[in-house]
């Protein structure tokens, strides 16, 4: 099982599109009336955002950290991501019947929160604060099948529960005057509980060259989200998202001991392509991550631990960049 934590102060430049809801809100609020078409757009925007934030918090996409927007002048935004979880196989390899295929069970779990704060600087909403918080927890499993010593496939299925809330602090004269209407149409001060089904297949090719491990993996994942309950009838989340993660990881032993353990370095490049609601809600087509680490090898020396050290990641997407660094540890069962 592996888990990576990143405690970080990072920058997150989201450009013009982080606030889809608010881009929609501005013309609506200016007229103080919501047409059915606009209401549907707003609902879609909020619903996409709920699923996207639940996936961002409850799934493995994007490491934990504190991300700050440098903004586009319309608002100051911060995004806090906290994550704990991992995935891995346990027990010894078993032969699958008489076939030349080995397998062992796999478990996966993850939980996390995303807090998204907007401090508005546009004249109409100047000083208003919107705080959206999503909590996601998921658990599931499957099995990994080895077709060769190097190539394996792990089909898995997970179930996720999500809870997303929005709190709006109105200070602008305009929003104070229109607060009730905004609440009534479900623009602000809402909450939603959701469920998500997450089937996935992980293809992995692991090659050892000398003592260096090179791992290629491809992980298409599908999310179907539905509403359990919501505080406003206009909030009804039904959506589909897809993620396709492709990753190249290199794990290099340095042949030098420190504190009785061998130093290792390495890192990975991971590209996550987003489709469906996750793409709409986060307004990015992809998230790239390049990660580096310097760790100490504890495999077979400390219970459940493969390595402990320091690591850092740099993220970039269609319209943002960010970075995080912190403790890097990898657990095995």
């Amino acid at each position, binding site marked *: 099982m592996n888990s990576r934590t990143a405690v970080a102060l990072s920058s997150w430049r989201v450009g013009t599109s982080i606030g889809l809801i608010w881009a929609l809100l501005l013309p609506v609020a200016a007229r103080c009336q919501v047409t059915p078409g606009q209401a549907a757009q707003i609902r879609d925007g909020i619903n996409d955002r709920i699923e996207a934030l639940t996936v961002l918090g409850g799934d493995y996409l994007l490491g934990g950290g504190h991300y700050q927007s440098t903004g586009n002048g319309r608002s100051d935004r911060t995004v806090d991501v906290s994550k704990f979880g991992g995935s891995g196989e346990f027990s010894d390899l078993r032969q699958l019947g008489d076939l030349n295929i080995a397998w062992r069970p796999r478990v996966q779990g993850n939980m996390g929160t995303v807090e998204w704060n907007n401090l508005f600087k546009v004249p109409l909403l100047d000083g208003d604060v919107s705080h959206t918080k999503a909590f996601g927890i998921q658990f599931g499993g499957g099995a990994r099948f080895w077709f060769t010593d190097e190539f394996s496939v792990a089909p898995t299925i997970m179930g996720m529960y999500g809870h997303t809330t929005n709190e709006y602090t109105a200070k602008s004269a305009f929003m104070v005057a229109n607060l009730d209407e905004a609440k009534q149409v479900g623009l602000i001060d809402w909450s939603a509980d959701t469920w998500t089904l997450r089937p996935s297949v992980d293809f992995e090719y692991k090659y050892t060259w000398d003592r260096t491990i090179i791992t290629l993996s491809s992980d298409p994942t599908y999310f179907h989200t539905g509403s359990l309950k919501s505080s406003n009838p206009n909030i009804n989340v039904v959506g589909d998202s897809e993620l396709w993660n492709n990753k190249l990881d290199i794990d290099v032993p340095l042949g030098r001991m420190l504190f009785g353990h061998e130093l290792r370095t390495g890192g990975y490049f991971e590209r996550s392509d987003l489709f469906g609601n996750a793409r709409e809600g986060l307004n990015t087509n992809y998230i790239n991550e390049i990660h580096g680490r310097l760790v100490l090898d504890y495999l*077979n020396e400390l219970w459940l631990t493969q390595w402990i050290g320091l690591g850092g990641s740099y993220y970039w997407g269609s319209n943002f960049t960010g970075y995080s660094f912190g403790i890097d540890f990898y657990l095995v069962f």
Partner: protein
Amino acid sequence: MQQSLDQRPIAAWWRKVSIAVLGESLAQSRPTLKLERILTRTGLAGRNNHCLRVRATGACLLSVMAFALAGCWTAPHADVQPKGDARLIQRAIPVVAVKEDATVQSIDVDQRVVVLNFSDGITATVKPGPRVKNFSRIRAGDKAKATVAQQLSVYVLKDGLSPGVDGKLEPVRTDAKVLKIEPAYRLLTLQYPNRQVEVLKVGLDAKLSEMEAGDAVVIETTELLALRVQK
């Protein structure tokens, strides 16, 4: 990989699949068109017009899979004859082993010596190290978790014989056999005669690249590092 390719139906099948996939990739200028059509028909490719990416990634994935599936998985075996002449590969490789379910066979408190039976079948007479506390409270028959320092000597044997210091073939006692070697993390997996398996971490100077499954291992237990009696 003891069977020939023809005797392995799965391997042959994978190879056939691989060749078919590769053949199609090479023969068609747009091999992922079918995939794109299927995705469009099922609605998976309709949204956000991501077919181009799917096409590129799908082609790469199929190629990687085709190469990867060309072999097959085989269970590791320690009961195989390693290659090469009988020889000593390396002597006295230090390791630390944790022995669950060890039994105290006897103890001499005055001489500070304890005889332990390990569940892998090995019996060791060892002196406790400075970190072993309450040695006098250990009793014969106690079940314990023992952490011991050991030294491994790894041989290639022919009929149980290996050249001695004078070059003459001498019988070598075999305590275990090498089952698996993972050089990346310096892990040596041993299999004992009772089929029990143990994974040991070896030092940077261990000649893992010269070892292979089936090598004979002679184990000398040199010190008792810790003993936790299980009540």
